[in-house]
């Protein structure tokens, strides 16, 4: 599913968070959004879902596969979410309901959008668990019994169980350690590519970005500061904001291979 964001502005209580953002995600394309904390990346994602906090004013246009999201009725948005758009969240521990089993949480979008029998639903959940590399025994467990990496695999399973055409991954690896980060990124990329879906991948980590996306936009203070192919942007950032981000990321990760990737 292709996604077009045109002139998106989001202000919360009069304070502009997102300013005039244009963004395109082609069919089957993986696009990154990178920027420091508080730059408005997540707010762009939330605007795409129509899930902005109270007091938010939004203008511009967000077309999800031809459907306008800005100003759409809540009922239509709810039908879109989970069915055509799947979301993987930053903090897997907190984004899973502590008193509900893994199987129930993965089944949630199926339950909401499809009229399946219990057996059909269970079958889909089990297939999804296998896809994200989790054992069937995990199905009956509660989130607190799982490791962070396993929790995020459950989060990915819940986001992808309905085979959505567009995936928003909102810093899906930020709460994980570096080895697990790589595994989760690779898992997400392979699943999204297998399904032929498009993905918007939000992160502040350049090494993850390079693994997950082909094109990206640098967000600074709610604006698109720079955009281009991920590899080019990392090798030769053209704007000061992008350069600063790349430099600080390089200093932080001390990864000499970053430039050549």
């Amino acid at each position, binding site marked *: 599913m292709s996604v077009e964001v045109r002139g998106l502005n989001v202000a919360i209580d009069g304070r502009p968070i997102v300013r005039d953002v244009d963004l395109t995600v082609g069919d089957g394309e993986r696009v990154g959004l990178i920027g420091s904390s508080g730059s408005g990346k997540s707010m762009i994602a939330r605007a795409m879902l129509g899930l902005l906090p109270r007091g938010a004013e939004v203008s511009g246009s967000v077309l999800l596969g031809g459907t306008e999201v800005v100003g759409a009725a809540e009922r239509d948005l709810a*039908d879109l979410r*989970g069915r055509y758009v799947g979301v993987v969240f930053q903090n897997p521990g907190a984004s899973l309901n502590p008193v*509900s089993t893994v199987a129930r949480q993965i089944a949630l979008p199926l339950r909401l959008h499809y009229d399946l029998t219990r057996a059909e639903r269970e079958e889909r959940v089990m297939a999804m668990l296998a896809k994200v590399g989790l054992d069937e025994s995990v199905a009956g467990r509660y989130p607190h019994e799982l490791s962070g990496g396993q929790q995020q695999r459950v989060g990915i399973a819940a986001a992808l169980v309905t085979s959505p055409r567009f995936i928003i991954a909102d810093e899906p690896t930020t709460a994980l350690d570096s080895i697990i980060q790589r595994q989760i990124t690779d898992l997400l990329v392979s699943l999204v590519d297998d399904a032929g879906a498009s993905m918007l991948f939000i992160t502040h980590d350049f090494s993850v970005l390079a693994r997950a996306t082909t094109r990206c936009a640098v967000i600074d203070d709610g604006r698109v500061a720079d955009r281009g192919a991920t590899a080019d942007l990392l090798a030769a950032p053209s704007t000061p904001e992008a350069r600063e981000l790349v430099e600080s990321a390089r200093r932080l990760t001390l990864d000499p291979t970053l430039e050549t990737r």
Partner: protein
Amino acid sequence: MTMRNLSESCTRVFRAIWRRGSGRYALTVLGLWMAVAVVSLFWTPQPLLATDGYHVWAAPSAAHPLGTDGTGADVLSWLMAGSRTNLVIAALTVVCSGALGLLLVGLMVSRRAGLGSVTVAVVDALISIPTVLIALLLTVPFGASVGVIVGACSIAYGLNLARVARPAAMLAARSDYVGSAFAGGASGWYAFTRHVVPNIAPVLAVQLSISAGTSVLAEAGLTYLGVGVGAGVPSWGHSLATSVKFINVFPLTVLWPGLVVTLAVVALNLLGDALVRVGEEVAR
């Protein structure tokens, strides 16, 4: 799957309560209470309306294990029959105050701007009305009845429940998992019933068990004031009210219903305590 999970977790909570001394006392008393209520449907030592004119205010004897009251009626029989009324009141209070409380909590955490703060203001204003006053107001159109007690208790405790459960419900409603439910396409109602309510269940359970206990006290108090159960309806409050005037002369007759009320209220409060502890254990 849901039902099995529910019954499983109920069994687990039951076992955890039973492991504590106070919990064991609470469950024993509640079990006895229910058993007596059922038995009283079929059998009481004396028929309720049988009065023994020769043994008025009698001390305990073989014929009247707890003695008789001023009309010569058997105190034990009336207390047994009363346990039924009080059980019904407690159960209905739990159900109705729970429903009202949840409705209010739902409005309080609603995403619709303004609705939440209006509900909070209304609850805060209404909560200042004492239960007795609500009961008095309800008696005007409806007359003294079990329904009035249940109504007054449900309103008062429902408001209280809403206020107590609100912080936990707010936390749950603003949590990431509710956010992810919305991202999955859930409606506000779905997110509230399937995600918020299960997560505030410990708070609800504690508060409702205390409400059940307080309803026993309220029944006794309201019946004593004449706005409780109707005349001739057996209840613990009724047994107290008919004998309390003679406490100086026949203290034993007052002691029994007082004792029963105390045991039941303590049991329900200890159940609440045990539920708090169990909740803490589970949270850990």
